[in-house]
């Protein structure tokens, strides 16, 4: 036994086992997220269930589970129930129902069943009974109705997009301009120049904008009147619903789709998810603003944390006289990495938002007070808070890299007549670059996954605008933003419709993993390129 232990074999098994366990856990997590996340967009068939009591249900089966039977004698067969997404929230209230397998009398997959994704009220399941234009009947029955729908829907969608564009772009621009004028006027008032010619000129300008706004409003009303087509849908259970075509985001019949059509549909849904805006309090639509916010926040954080951490590490390792004080500082920095992130968040609120942001508002934006500009959560403050949170990681990695550079390299440079600064700049910095990037990779991974400090420093459930847009100064660092990590929390735990939102949690988690992966891979590739160039590193 003793010889067996001494041979080292058990140790190899122990180390291998530890690694295997870690790999299994990580792989399991990724698999779970992949399985639940990727299946969400696949169009599952619409089933029509007739229950033993005669009621009819129509919807998509989302899951099946065993009914627990505590205390039942052995031998009794297991009973199951299924969860059906029946939609039609406006008609029957609940989006999901549980049905015992035993109570189902008949199942069918009706070809004429249509799924309408609406811009409001979630999905509508049913069969088309008629298509109307105003009061005039255009088509009747499921078959003709579907054909008519295909004819009129593209035009209705185009009109809808036009309305959206006007609302967002043109009216947005008008609002922006008006807001600017209003602020300028307020500034003049603060300076005591209400009656100045400047003020009356601004007033005039404001009037022109108001007139323009009226024109746009009229145009919008016009467009809205254009789309007068409606579809009458009869839902399972007998109720009917008249739906305006402009409300339909997507209408499809999953029971008639072949594998190819389903794949195409799947890809279009994935694209909508990645590139689209959220709908229905984030449970539908896309998460593009959250992706954008996450990436942008990580970028700003990297821009801040890299120079800060690298400079601090250089001072600690290259210039400071090594002693008790420096050791204390080093320990303190390392411990900073263990401080709960919410504490950093609180610091961010107190220092960045109230103190720094508040001062900026008082000095540069007094006209918009009491509405804060920088004195409230925003992407800049969130990024700075995260930079503070991750700076120890960069310092430690850079310091390790500096310590691993052979002293001979510095001496060689000095012996050639270089000053200490030249040596640091031309020899030490390039050599330590891979370590700096390693630190940055760790910092980015940490920052992208952090949620708690963001919740109080600028992340919101739904941001009205991205931090970058076409209005001066294009980059709006004071704006609130959306974040994938917070999106997961919000959709998963704050949603009014938890069952509908759960798949979104997995897909969003998957996306967050992908974003972190892409950010890290970029940094790793740059690092490897540098390493090949210098072929020298510790990590």
């Amino acid at each position: 036994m003793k010889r067996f232990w001494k041979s080292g074999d058990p140790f190899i098994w122990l180390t291998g086992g530890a690694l295997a366990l870690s790999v299994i856990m990580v792989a399991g997590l990724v698999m779970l997220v992949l399985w639940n996340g990727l299946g969400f967009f696949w169009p599952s068939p619409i089933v029509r269930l007739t229950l033993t009591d005669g009621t009819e249900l129509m919807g998509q089966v989302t899951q099946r589970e065993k009914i627990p039977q505590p205390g039942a004698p052995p031998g009794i067969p297991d009973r199951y129930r299924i969860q059906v997404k029946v939609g039609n929230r406006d008609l029957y209230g609940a989006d999901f129902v549980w049905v015992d397998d035993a109570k189902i009398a008949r199942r069918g997959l009706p070809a004429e069943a249509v799924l309408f994704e609406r811009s409001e009220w979630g999905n509508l399941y049913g069969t088309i009974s008629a298509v109307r234009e105003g009061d005039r009947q255009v088509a009747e029955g499921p078959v003709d109705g579907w054909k008519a729908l295909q004819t009129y829907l593209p035009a209705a969608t185009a009109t809808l997009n036009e309305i959206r564009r006007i609302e967002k772009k043109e009216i947005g621009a008008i609002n922006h301009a008006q807001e600017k004028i209003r602020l300028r006027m307020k500034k003049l008032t603060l300076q005591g120049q209400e009656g100045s010619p400047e003020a009356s000129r601004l007033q005039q300008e404001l009037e022109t904008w108001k007139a323009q706004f009226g024109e746009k409003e009229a145009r919008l009303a016009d467009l809205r009147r254009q789309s007068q087509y409606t579809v009458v849908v009869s839902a399972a259970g007998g109720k009917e619903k008249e739906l305006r075509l402009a409300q339909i985001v997507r209408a499809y019949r999953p029971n008639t789709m072949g594998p190819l059509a389903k794949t195409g549909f799947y890809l279009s849904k994935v694209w909508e998810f990645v590139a689209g805006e959220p709908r229905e309090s984030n449970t539908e639509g896309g998460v593009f603003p959250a992706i954008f916010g996450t990436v942008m926040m990580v970028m700003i954080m990297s821009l801040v944390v890299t120079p800060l951490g690298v400079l601090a590490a250089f001072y600690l390792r290259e210039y400071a006289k090594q002693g008790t004080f420096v050791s204390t500082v080093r320990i303190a920095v390392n411990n900073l990495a263990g401080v709960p992130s919410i504490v950093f968040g609180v610091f961010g609120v107190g220092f960045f938002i109230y103190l720094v942001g508040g001062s900026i508002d008082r000095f540069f934006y007094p006209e918009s007070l009491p509405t804060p500009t920088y004195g409230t959560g925003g992407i800049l403050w969130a990024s700075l808070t995260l930079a503070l949170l991750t700076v120890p990681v960069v310092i430690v990695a850079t310091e390790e890299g500096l310590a691993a550079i052979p002293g001979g390299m510095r001496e060689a440079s000095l012996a050639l007549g270089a000053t200490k600064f030249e040596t640091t700049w031309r020899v030490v910095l390039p050599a330590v670059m891979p370590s700096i990037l390693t630190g940055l990779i760790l910092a980015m991974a940490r920052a992208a996954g952090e949620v708690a400090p963001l919740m109080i420093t600028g992340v919101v459930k739904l941001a009205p605008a991205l931090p970058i847009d076409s209005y001066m100064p294009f980059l709006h660092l004071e704006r609130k933003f959306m974040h994938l990590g917070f999106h997961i929390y919000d959709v998963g735990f704050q949603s009014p419709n938890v069952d509908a939102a759960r798949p979104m949690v997995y897909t969003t988690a998957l996306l967050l993993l992908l974003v972190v992966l892409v950010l890290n891979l970029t940094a790793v590739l740059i690092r490897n390129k540098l390493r090949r160039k210098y072929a020298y590193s510790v990590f």
Partner: protein
Amino acid sequence: MAAQAEMAIESQEKPASVRDSKGDGVGRVAILRDGGTQGRTGEARTSMEPMIEIRKLTLRYGEKLALQDISLDIPKHQVTAFIGPSGCGKSTLLRCLNRLNDLVDGVTISGTIRIGGIDINDPNLEITELRKRIGMVFQKSNPFPKTIYDNVAYGPRIQGVRSRSALEEVVERSLRDAALWDEVHDRLHQSALGLSGGQQQRLCIARAIAVEPEILLMDEPCSALDPIATAKIEELMADLKKQYTIVIVTHNMQQAARVSDYTAFLYLGQLVEYDLTRQLFVKPAKKQTEDYITGRFG
């Protein structure tokens, strides 16, 4: 045979007005050498002038005495070797010459070192200017993690050479002088860390001579190399001494005997004997030296 050391001490105890007069220096060296050779051989030593004059050099690391009262003259355009057992202070002495010891915490130095008549410990002296005149090659080859070209061009660039053609010329000349050009001319823009150990060391020599120093300090340059690479570097030193004053620290007594013109034997921080190499190895003046070079030491 104690005469040499005594004479040396005597000579440095002359009034310290040595720096102004070159002739005085030559005279002193002549005396010193006479003390060492004492008419045994008819060396032609008229052209010898000291490049480096070390006087009463004492160096402490904190409390520890590393060099004690060292005085010697190192002649121009000759190879001078420092030999001695590990820890005897020969590397420390070498690093005093370009003031690399300044980087070590707690070092105190007394005595004077003059290079070309200039006191190198003068606080007004620009240390980088001094180091530009003194190239150094280290025990462990330490090319920068840059391309071969950038390694050699590093020194000239530090000195402010920007013109591409000038840099290319310097790189080629230095690599040729370091007998490395033929091996690397087709891969100048690859990483220097891809070279073999011997090539790396020659690259370090090329890097050191690229700034055209007057003196080349070599700190056990061959200790990590195989005999073939060592032979190449020794050959190189014979060529280089035409242009540079070379000071080499070595553990290898055969190497000292092969490459150097003068040899200094240090033991426990003291200069035991300093003489023409051929003299020191054939007929050492001190018992300690004889014991060391014959391997009966300790």
